[in-house]
């Protein structure tokens, strides 16, 4: 590990990284725009210039070199001495910040980026108080560059991060710099809008307010938003995200750095896939069928109801072949009961529910619910992958089922068995953002006498359900998802569920006969005692704000 001296402070850093990266990791807020650790280095913003000690040409003695060096382009070398805290460096920063604002419209009051804009922050910290340019500013039009993105060219600092992102990470190369000098601007090619599965990242990458998300445009001031650490349910990769919410509403989703999964990026599915959380047609009260009609139920009555009904169910009575027949053997008790655990559930919820069902009916069949798969895994040039599996926790549920053993089935087999009327009662958990109850699923489940449906939206199962329980989305719950590679990542609750809805974790906690509040952490500890896979969660390193 090389040691370098920055501003008189000795710092140990990783070998081969640029001095700027070492400084940022050491906590120094060195201003920079064009440098991004995930992209190639262009050293064009000239804001991170530093002073460096070099051997004097004649005396070979180490002296401060008379010019400034870009710290993003200079790799660390053991024993090197650099400084950012000098008059020349500050003078350069001041001048460069003045240049950046020459043609900037200074429209912070109407700019979405205000509050998290590095042009604001750096001007405040390093720039001059006013501009000395008395000529008119160059005006640049706002451009519609794609279905999701707007470009406010006059706010652009031409750091070319977005261009490099499209070239290097997305590999689609839609963006380019056109024109020379101060007339340079970012643009798309005629007829080829910015539209790739990762394009939303250019908005996060943009250090200023040039690239904006149409979805978020003029929705919220960013300082009103509360950011919650979460994991995207959009695919099985486990992309870590920030959920930005205000007043119990989600307003946007941003990537959360994760060195093991998605690095700095997320897919557009993860970014824009939260809209269903606020759909008006969500189920919002539990209902129980009595004499053929549904009546609203109280949450408190459900655990007792379910427990007693499941316990009542005797095996064999309705089996088509009658092969098993009524038997005094208690080991066979509950053979006709099934629980379908959705891969949208968190590990804790799945475990609690599975335990409840097995507790009531030891022979019950546990089923991994419908796993939505769309196309094939999509891998991008630098290795970012969008998984074909569009659910977050297939692997976690599988792990729990494997651990619990006994009768398990996959979803297709379960449906086949249901058609054969092998199940008297079933607890179905959904929670998918899209329609998942196809007619054949509905027909198969119609054969189940006592059907408990725990789902987000009304579906074909409505008229067949004996008990209907409204579910909560992932943003309203807490827990862990295990991604397709077995990485266990916790997510926190960002907003409360809509009125009338209880979060899934709390409900299954009570269903399992426990009192008090559901804490994913406590449940996980219990699970870890049985399954070592759940002993450790992975929480990625949080990047400080100055290392953008």
């Amino acid at each position, binding site marked *: 590990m090389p040691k370098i001296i920055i501003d008189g402070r000795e710092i140990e850093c990783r070998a081969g990284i640029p001095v700027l990266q070492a400084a940022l990791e050491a906590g120094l807020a060195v201003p920079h725009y064009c440098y991004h650790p995930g992209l190639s280095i262009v050293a064009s913003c000239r804001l991170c210039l530093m002073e460096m000690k070099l051997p004097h040409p004649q005396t070979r003695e180490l002296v401060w070199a008379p010019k*400034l060096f870009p710290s993003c382009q200079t790799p660390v070398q053991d024993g090197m001495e650099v400084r950012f805290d000098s008059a020349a460096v500050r003078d350069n920063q001041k001048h460069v910040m003045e*240049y950046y604002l020459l043609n900037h419209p200074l429209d912070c009051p109407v700019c979405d980026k205000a509050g998290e804009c590095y042009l604001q922050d750096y001007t405040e910290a390093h720039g001059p108080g006013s501009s000395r340019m008395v000529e008119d500013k160059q005006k640049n039009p706002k451009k519609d560059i794609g279905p999701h993105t707007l470009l406010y060219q006059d706010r652009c600092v031409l750091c070319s991060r977005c261009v490099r992102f499209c070239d290097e990470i997305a590999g689609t190369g839609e963006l380019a710099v056109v024109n020379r000098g101060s007339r340079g601007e970012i643009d798309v090619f005629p007829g080829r809008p910015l539209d790739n599965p990762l394009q939303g990242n250019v908005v996060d990458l943009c250090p200023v307010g040039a690239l904006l998300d149409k979805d978020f445009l003029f929705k919220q001031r960013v300082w009103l938003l509360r950011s919650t650490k979460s994991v995207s349910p959009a695919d099985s990769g486990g992309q870590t995200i920030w959920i930005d919410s205000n007043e119990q509403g989600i307003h946007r989703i941003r990537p959360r750095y994760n060195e093991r999964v998605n690095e700095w990026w997320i897919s557009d599915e993860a970014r824009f896939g939260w809209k269903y959380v606020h759909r008006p047609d969500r189920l919002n009260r539990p209902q129980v069928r009595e004499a053929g009609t549904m009546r609203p139920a109280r949450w408190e009555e459900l655990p007792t109801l379910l427990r007693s009904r499941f316990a009542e169910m005797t095996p064999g009575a309705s089996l088509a072949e009658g092969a098993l027949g009524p038997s005094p053997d208690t080991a066979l008790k509950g053979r006709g009961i099934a629980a379908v655990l959705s891969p949208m559930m968190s590990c804790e919820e799945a475990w609690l529910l599975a335990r409840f069902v097995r507790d009531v009916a030891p022979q019950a069949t546990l089923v991994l619910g419908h796993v939505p798969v769309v196309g094939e895994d999509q891998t991008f040039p630098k290795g970012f992958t969008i998984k074909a599996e569009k659910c977050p926790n297939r692997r976690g549920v599988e792990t729990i089922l494997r651990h619990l053993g006994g009768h398990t089935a996959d979803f297709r087999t379960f449906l086949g068995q249901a058609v054969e009327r092998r199940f008297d009662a079933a607890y179905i958990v959904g929670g998918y953002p899209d329609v998942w109850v196809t007619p054949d699923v509905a027909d198969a489940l119609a054969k189940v006498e006592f059907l408990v449906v725990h789902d987000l939206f009304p579906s074909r199962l409505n008229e067949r359900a004996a008990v209907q329980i409204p579910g909560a989305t992932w943003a309203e719950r807490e827990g862990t998802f295990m991604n397709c590679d077995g990485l266990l990542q916790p997510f926190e609750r960002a907003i409360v569920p809509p009125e009338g809805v209880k979060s899934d974790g709390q409900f299954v906690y009570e269903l399992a006969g426990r009192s008090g509040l559901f804490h994913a952490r406590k449940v996980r500890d219990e699970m870890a005692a049985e399954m070592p896979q759940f002993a450790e969660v992975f929480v990625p390193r949080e990047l400080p704000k100055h290392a953008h």
Partner: protein
Amino acid sequence: MPFERVLMKHVGVPNSTSLAVYQADGGYTGAARALRMKPDELVELVKQANLRGRGGAGFPAGLKWSFLPKDRKITYLCVNADESEPPTFCNRVLIDHDPHMLLEGILIAGYATRTTVAYIYLRGEFMEQFHVLQRALDEAYAAGYFGRNILGSGYDLECYIHRGAGAYICGEETGLIESLEGKRGWPRIKPPFPAVEGLFRQPTVVNNVETLACLPHLLTRGLEWWLGLGTANSKGPKMYCISGPVNRPGCYEAPLGITCRELIYGDDFGGGMRGGKKVKAVFPGGLSMGVLRGDLFPRAPAGTIDPRQDYDELDCVLDFDDVRKYDLLGLGTAAAVVVPEDADMRDVLVNVARFYALESCGQCTHCREGTTWMYKIAQRMRAGAGRLLDLDLLVEISQNMGMMPGMSICGLPDGAAWPVRTAVQKFRREFERRIAEQEPEAARRWTREVNRAAYELPVLQGRETTYVGGTFYQPP
């Protein structure tokens, strides 16, 4: 002994672009001699000759060649014929009149650096020169000077001509390389230097046309002849260009080290000012190198050089070293443009600033924003709305852009800052006088003019963009 022209010896000779004429005068004997030597001996010879690059920076060519890694497999030679420095035209004269001299130089340099492929990056506007050069190259291929097993030596060299698209920045060596690779001509960050990682990520040598054209003569006439020309640290012949209101504007060859005064007034060169006017200013090395005061100003006391005083600076020796004493960036391309006594320095400043505002590639912030800002200030000053503090502002911007060469990716901001700063500093009294004489009315008019000027700068795409509202993208 009068100087015998070598680089320009065929200027004026009928049919000088043909191989026959070139060969009749001893053409390609230098290359033949070179091919009998070892490549390393050639590099050593060029080092001893202290052949400094004619492209502007004056970097020793032999030293450049010796930076190539020893264990390289492929080497490329790029010939920088993207001659865009105003007001320079010596490469054009060379290619127009003697393309084979360049080709022979390429052969020699290629052999010395063990190059297998050479690219001539020709300025986009040089259409006629392209045809001349292509014809000459075809002839040379036919005669066996290019291709496989050249002159029986077992050395292979392919040579291609590539035309640029008219960007000043592509004359910067890494900008040239990027452009040659088919990308936007944005200079690369260094290190790695092209000698280590250049064209197609392979070791690459980039040399100027005139540098290469010197090589045949160095080989045929010998080191002694070469070292007999020029001054202490600047050896060999050099092509000087002179333009402006002189009697004989044009391109002239002389040993390195004539003075600026000789270039303007010498009978062999500029032949004096038209109409007997006095010289107010001269940009002696292409615009980027800065400006000298002319003989409108009093002679300096013998033996003093003080750029801070208003002295006549025409005694500046145009070699690689002396120019620095006069606060110039370097010799540059040795192409002088003369400003007569009746010109307004504000017009000069606008022209200078406009060029760099147009040609800055837009990567580094200082250069991108600073060049345009300087242009706007210069415009306003010419429109009669200057302020005294603008002079200080111009100096400050230019010092920040190019106070210390090497703070940006390439040298363009240094070259953009230097003429503006020297012009403002050396002609400050004139600017101050012009500002004092301004009519108050003009100051009110300037906004419109300046703004129109800013939009005059050409753009390819985008300004009148039709994309607003999405003409190509229709939301579903």
